[in-house]
């Protein structure tokens, strides 16, 4: 059943966010720390376990994959609801602080990821690139 997949996703979200919220309370912050990150980790471990047990039929999987495929459309909608006007009205200090903090960090990607093992890092699906992951024409 497709709903089982959606339910698994929802359970992961609630458990992960609960961990993030409790962590935030323990550290005295009004908000959650890495709730989405914890949810993602739980999903990885839980679905791996369920797959091994043979409890992840195609239809259950579809309930997760649907939301996975909705990611980009949701992000497009998110981009359309950003406060772009405030960003541009923030003046030169806001513009510089925002842009420079990004530009300065880009060169660090290569340095830190070399240490993270980028040389041997793969998606594990190099033969079967999912549709939409890469432009059709080179």
């Amino acid at each position, binding site marked *: 059943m497709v709903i089982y997949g959606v339910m698994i996703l929802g359970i992961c979200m609630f458990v992960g966010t609960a961990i993030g919220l409790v962590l935030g309370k323990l550290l005295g912050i009004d908000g959650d720390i890495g709730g989405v990150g914890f949810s993602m980790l739980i999903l990885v471990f839980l679905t791996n376990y369920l797959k091994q047990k043979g409890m992840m039929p195609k239809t259950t999987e579809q309930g997760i994959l649907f939301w996975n495929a909705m990611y980009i459309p949701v992000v497009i*909608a998110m981009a359309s609801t950003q406060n772009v006007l405030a960003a541009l009205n923030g003046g030169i200090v806001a513009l510089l602080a925002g842009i420079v903090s990004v530009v300065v960090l880009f060169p660090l990607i290569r340095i830190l990821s070399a240490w993270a093992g980028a040389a041997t890092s793969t998606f594990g699906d190099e033969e079967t690139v999912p549709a939409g992951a890469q432009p059709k024409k080179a």
Partner: protein
Amino acid sequence: MDLSYKFLMELTQPRALIFAFVFVGALTWLCYQFSDKITRGRVHGSAVAIIVGLILAFVGGMLTHGKRGIADVPLFAGFALMGGAMLRDFCIISTAYGVRMEELKKAGIAGVLSLVVGTFVAFVVGVVIAYAFGYRGTVDLTTIGAGAVTFIVGPVTGSAIGASSDIIALSIAAGVVKSIAVMILTPLLAKPFGLTNPAAAMVYGGLMGTTSGTAAGLAATDARLVPYGALTATFYTGFGCLVCPSVCYIVMRMIFG
């Protein structure tokens, strides 16, 4: 004119989310056509769509002077739900399905380190730029620095240490600029800066942080990078909210008094 507008609203307002689905679907189709035919695949369709989204957000802001971009235009109210934090986070979590555990383990420590480096570098950049433009108060400098971390860390820090509302607004603006800069620059800079594999994506997520920025930036670059980058990025705002009003503020007081 007035009558047809009323009819349109009667049609769409109770179905705002569905209208958003239809509109984003049409927009996506147009942007992928543009990517394919006009740019010959050089600019990814989702990158085009995200930039068009930002333009729509600007237009929405101009028309309504609201804070939620196009979602403040009544016809597009469904965008607030479709692009809001609830569905965004739900979709981000779903991308973790099928992630390779060995990649997570391998890049785990580097991911944590990049989180720390990313937060402090962004903070320092924000402080230096604020200082260069004549800001001298420790509270003001700290708040603007925190804004360069993310647009959530800025106001959280500002209200914790008692910044004035115009400085908090400035810190939010700096954070929103950062988020937009990440969205636009990531697809352009990804290849030359080695953002092509899961390990690099985890480092990138920790360095850049801003969830909305990295979510859109990676989507426009290569969808397979999304779960790895999103995983580390989602810890960033929490970490920033933790260290900016405490460690960073204490260090700032030691330097600037």
